């Protein structure tokens, strides 16, 4: 008996992968082996390349925008030309549209979700691998449309496509809506796939409440993707119909109602903001557990709050239209429900803090991102409370206050959780470690640069600076100057992350199977995983029971003690 245990302990899972063996990256060769792959990890990687390219494009637009605004701050600046205004309007539109539809929405589900979800389930792949590949092609097709927009006169409607401006402008609205429409399919297919996978492919021993919280978050996200995205598709189709066929739907000149478009649009886009943030919250739960090395506090509250957010998120869209002239009663109802969504978000924060209590907190790079997340999301959420309050939103709507709010939640929170997750799973995905010092410097630049860029915008907005302005009155110059400087710091930080990752791929030291001591199932296979994910079925226990993993100095990683895990599992069943 003890002999067998010893063998298990020594071999653990660590012995699975010898030096010369194949993994999913070198399993087969040639471009076609990638383009036709059904392997969720390879699809995740292809998504990574495409989505990060979009991020670069959208990010460069942002730097250009901020630079243009900085140049308007000179005291003796000449009156703005219509040409400059056109360029500015197109840049902020492309910036928003690219980053929302091609980066923030797909980033976590399509990259990290694809990579990690089947591994966390101990599964070989997602439920529908072909659908998964199709979703990547949808993404690429949608991206092609956006590329076409870029080359064919641009787009100047803002990412919100408000009518009747969008039905009357001469820029490429039809192509852009087509692009967003197709991107929507990619999102729907991913959502469907994840729902099916979580229902069908959970291993024996993993009930719903033994699922890692990242999966709960992805599940909640998928529900929104499947239910809300078709509404966007319909809306964009109606918009295209109006533009091309002149059917009066939204344009009052044709007998339509422009505010109807806003209802349709936000009926999708408010839930969509939770598509953006929920997976990020899931990542934070994982990071908190692993880097505090203990059970998450309030597992079921965190899990249910994801579902609550997903469902309540469908009922608050009207808070984007307080000033549109909708009735006072409508406004009051939307305001009330909006506040109710803030509560589950607060609960999550409290639970993460409680997870730190009595933990063993490591300040490894992913954890730094988790801590940054808490700071940024708290600010983003609290300023959401300003905006939810009717009288305050009348003043703040369509000013830089709103711009700052959604950047705190979308860029601040979602981007930090995404980068944190990338660092966390990096060793698993590529089998390489990265330079910790560079990673930490980059983290600091991002955190500092972000706050410098966006905090000042709350003040600018409160003072009355409207958004989407190519030019501004002199009293706003100081805010724009500070914000632009901050954006440069932020950009340097992000490029440093890119450098950090590339350097790791080129010359990073080999990663152990489990560098952090996490116990979710992806750490039960080698880094990077083999083509079929697991050579031997992983051992399913409580997802955050990490005490069966012992630190081993020689590999600077953790080794599984299965016997101990079985014993701990028995204890927990009592």
């Amino acid at each position, binding site marked *: 008996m003890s002999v067998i245990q010893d063998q298990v302990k020594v071999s653990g899972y660590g012995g699975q992968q010898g030096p010369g063996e194949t993994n999913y990256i070198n399993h087969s060769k040639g471009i076609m082996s990638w383009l036709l792959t059904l392997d969720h990890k390879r699809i995740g990687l292809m998504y990574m390349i495409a989505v990060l390219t979009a991020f670069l494009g959208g990010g460069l637009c942002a730097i250009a925008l901020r630079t243009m605004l900085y140049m308007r701050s000179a005291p003796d600046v000449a009156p703005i030309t219509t040409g400059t*205004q056109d360029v500015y309007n197109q840049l902020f539109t492309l910036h928003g549209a690219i980053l929302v539809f091609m980066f923030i929405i797909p980033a976590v589900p399509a990259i990290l979700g694809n990579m990690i979800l089947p591994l966390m389930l101990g599964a070989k792949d997602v439920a529908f691998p072909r659908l998964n590949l199709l979703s990547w092609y949808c993404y690429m097709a949608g991206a092609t449309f956006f590329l076409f927009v870029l080359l064919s006169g641009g787009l100047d409607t803002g990412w919100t496509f408000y009518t009747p401006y969008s039905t009357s402008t001469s820029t490429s609205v039809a192509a852009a809506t087509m692009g967003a429409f197709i991107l929507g399919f990619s999102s729907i297919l991913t959502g469907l796939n994840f729902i099916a996978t979580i229902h069908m492919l959970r291993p024996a021993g993993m009930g719903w409440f033994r699922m890692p919280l990242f999966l709960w978050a992805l599940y909640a996200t998928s529900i929104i993707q499947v239910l809300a995205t078709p509404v966007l598709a319909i809306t964009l189709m109606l918009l295209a119909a109006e533009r091309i066929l002149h059917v009066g739907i939204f344009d009052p000149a044709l007998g339509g109602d422009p505010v109807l478009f806003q209802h349709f649009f936000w009926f999708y886009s408010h839930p969509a903001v939770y598509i953006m943030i929920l997976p990020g919250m899931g990542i934070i739960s994982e990071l908190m557990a692993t880097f505090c090395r203990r*059970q998450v506090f309030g597992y079921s509250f965190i899990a249910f709050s994801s579902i609550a957010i997903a469902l309540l998120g469908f009922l608050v869209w009207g808070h984007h239209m307080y000033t549109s*002239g909708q009735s006072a009663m409508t406004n009051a109802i939307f305001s009330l429900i909006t506040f109710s969504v803030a509560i589950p978000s607060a609960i999550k924060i409290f639970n993460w803090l409680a997870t730190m209590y*009595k*933990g063993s907190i490591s300040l490894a790079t992913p954890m730094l991102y988790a801590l940054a997340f808490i700071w940024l999301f708290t600010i983003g959420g609290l300023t959401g409370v300003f905006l939810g309050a009717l009288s305050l939103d009348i003043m703040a709507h369509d000013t830089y206050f709103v711009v700052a709010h959604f950047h705190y939640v979308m860029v601040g929170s979602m981007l930090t959780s995404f980068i944190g997750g990338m660092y966390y799973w990096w060793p698993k995905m590529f089998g390489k470690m990265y330079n910790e010092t560079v990673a930490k410097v980059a983290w600091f630049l991002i955190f500092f640069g972000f706050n410098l860029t966006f905090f000042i915008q709350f003040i600018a907005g409160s003072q009355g600076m409207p958004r989407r302005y190519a030019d501004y009155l002199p009293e706003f110059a100081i805010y724009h100057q500070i914000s632009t400087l901050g954006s440069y710091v932020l950009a340097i930080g992000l490029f440093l992350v890119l450098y950090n990752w590339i350097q790791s791929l080129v010359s990073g030291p080999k990663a152990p199977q489990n560098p952090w001591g996490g116990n979710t199932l992806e750490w039960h296979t080698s880094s990077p995983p083999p083509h079929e994910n697991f050579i031997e079925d992983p051992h399913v226990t409580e997802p955050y029971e990490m005490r069966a993993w012992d*630190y081993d100095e020689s590999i600077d990683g953790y080794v599984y003690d299965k016997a101990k895990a079985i014993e701990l599992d028995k204890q927990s069943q009592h």
Partner: protein
Amino acid sequence: MLAILAQAEKTFFLPPGRSTVAASHDGLYQFVLWMSVIWLILIAGVMIYFVIKYRRKSPHDKPVGPTHSTAIELGWTLPPLILVMIIFVWGFRGFMDMNQAPNGATRNQVIVAASKWNWSFTYAGGQNDGTLHVPVNTPISLVLTSSDVIHSFYVPDFRVKKDVVPGRYNKTWFQATEVGEYNLFCAEYCGQQHSTMVTKVVVQSQEDYDAYIRKLDEIIMTMPPVELGKRAYKVYGCKQCHSLDGIAGTGPSWKDVFGKTQTFADGSSRKVDENYVRDSILNPGKDLVAGYDNVMPTFQGQIKEQEITGVIELLKSISANYDGPILDKAPAAPGDEAGADAGDTSGGGNDETGETQLQE
């Protein structure tokens, strides 16, 4: 101490309030602001404290901590829940005050016409101007109309904002509490020159305001048609798209247009005469000048006949393709039949705003 800080914050975060609803808005703003600061400090403080206190001592650590407690979960749900409910009610009541004009406001009703990228204000007597003048301490009711896309009427100092939606009349109101000039922005993105769609609200004493209105009436009656045309050019925002010096902007320049033969997008052509100009103003989508987009809003129902005549005379006066007479003399002196009908014939403005706008 907190009170002093709150006082300092007031101008740091918000511009000084200059309307009757500002106090309630600012009070709630301060409340939410300080509540947020306290929560943020609390959360960040606990976080940093834990990071220091429970810092990992060794990679071999295997800590055990509490994993759940329904009592704690419900306990910490309560404070935020109570706070947001307070904020909801406070915000709703403030909103109702902003939304519901007091009785009597309609006596001072101004029609706000927004079009790409211009504001034009029509007072109760039919007078018209490009800046909004209002008497102090008097409730003003606004009826908002747009002739093209959605705009939004926004005066930060008054804490007032309302979208201007084509095809419907939105309403709002304010009561300014201090004499002065305040910025009025368009807050809803409306295309190319959105960021220049900025004008002023001029709050005056009742006497000054009355004098201003009288002056608007006078100007109309005494102004020569060419001058009236120039004024319409500014007040209705034609200048946002048309230049007088031959440089094409969003629309064709007005220099040398009159009398020339214009070619249209569909290949047809027509000589620019009085009727063509009139058609272009009232029904701009009809004959689309080749090389330009269909972005000109219609001015049907806004611009007055005298002003159209004025624009026509203005066009004639700057065209080398026209050598007929130009009406640049003042109409009959005030006092005869034109004066009896001031409400109809006016469209005047104060030359002060006229001048500054022309220089741009």
